[in-house]
């Protein structure tokens, strides 16, 4: 067991020593969203993982925890991008049911899923071109503990969803400070990201869901912003709320990013007012 930390340290050392390029500007790789794609916290942005520009590789590894009144979500994952064009990502989510599992004597006390992501920059640039950077993404999700979701009406344990998102950094756009705008639409039928399966007894079709964020960069290292994400409402047993958060991002260098947020997740599986703290740490190469 003592081998594991050493192996991880070795892996980090190896990654850090590889000639991963850093052709993009600080913070323009964003953080890692909870589904693994580069972006904010709860929404992906059009930017790609890491700091690779044309002809260069970039990569992120990240770990995120969201702790609300009654639940806890842990996420870990990796994103790899090439040529500032294409991004592959993987994330594992584990949703701890805490209070709900105790109160209802549930057969399982957590729900997990794997998310495999692909994102392609279609055109534009975050900062320079006439057009904003626009990217198209797909995410294939596999829910791994389907008993509880099936009991509350979820129709399937596996599904694929798509999104298109645009991002632009406006130099001096917020009273002289740089302004990051991001907006996208998602085509999905995932219940609570997919942790409660896909499709439901109430609705079993994909919905068009809007998501977006606005951030101000006080300097190249500090960003303060808000995010919003619409969610579908497919299951009859409980409502599903749209999500929002207020985040502070710290980018001390091109190898590290830390995001702290206050998240308002509303009603999740019958328990309402799930406000909580979001913390994410990302290493970039």
């Amino acid at each position, binding site marked *: 067991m003592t081998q594991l930390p050493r192996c991880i340290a070795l892996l980090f050392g190896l990654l850090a020593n590889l000639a991963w*390029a850093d*052709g993009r*500007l600080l913070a323009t790789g964003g953080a890692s969203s909870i589904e693994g794609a580069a972006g904010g916290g709860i929404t992906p942005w059009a930017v790609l993982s890491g700091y690779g520009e*044309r002809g*260069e590789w970039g990569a992120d590894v990240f770990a995120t925890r969201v702790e609300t009144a009654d639940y806890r979500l842990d996420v870990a994952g990796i994103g790899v991008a090439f040529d500032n064009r294409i991004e592959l990502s993987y994330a594992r989510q584990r949703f701890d049911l805490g209070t709900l599992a105790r109160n209802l004597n549930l057969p399982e006390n957590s729900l997990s899923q794997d998310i495999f992501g692909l994102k392609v920059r279609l055109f534009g640039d975050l900062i*320079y071109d006439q057009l904003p950077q626009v990217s198209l993404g797909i995410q294939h999700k596999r829910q791994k503990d389907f008993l509880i979701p099936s009991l509350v009406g979820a129709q399937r344990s596996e599904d694929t969803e798509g999104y298109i998102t645009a991002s632009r950094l406006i130099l001096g756009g917020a009273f*002289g*400070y*740089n302004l990051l705008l991001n907006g996208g639409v998602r085509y999905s039928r995932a219940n609570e990201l997919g942790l409660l399966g896909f499709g439901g007894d109430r609705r079993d079709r994909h919905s068009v869901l809007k998501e977006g964020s606005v951030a101000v960069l006080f*300097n190249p290292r500090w960003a303060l912003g808000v995010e919003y994400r619409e969610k579908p409402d497919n299951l009859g047993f409980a409502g599903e709320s749209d999500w929002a958060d207020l985040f502070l991002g710290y980018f001390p260098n091109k190898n590290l990013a830390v995001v702290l947020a206050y998240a308002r997740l509303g009603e999740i599986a019958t328990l309402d007012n799930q406000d909580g703290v979001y913390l994410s740490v990302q290493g970039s190469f």
Partner: protein
Amino acid sequence: MRSLLLVVVFTLAACAQQPAKDDSLYRDLGEQAGITRIVEGMLLNIAADPRIVRHFENIDIVRLRDKLVEQICVEAGGPCTYTGDSMEESHKGQNLTPSDFNALVENLQDAMSAQGVPMPAQNRLLARLAPMRAQVIDR
């Protein structure tokens, strides 16, 4: 009659001039002396930057400094004239990449921060220079 003609001529000349130019960015950058320090700081940063220093070998660095000072002065609304080559001409044959451009931006940002230039003024200058990327890279 002659004095009236003079008045008319002067009035027309005054009207033909551009409205007073906004030189607030020029002043925020510290005018001629401040811009010179920024450019020299940036060139020193580049000299220590293995990513792009090779693009600055075998060139007349004093002339480059003078032209960059002129250019930034003009972009900032200062009382200067740019006497250098066009962006396309001066970068021809260098095959600069987007990464090279960003590396220079970072060296400029560091130089401005070292001179204590406020962040909004830094961003205003970068916003003036960003559209030049298309004339600089892939030449």
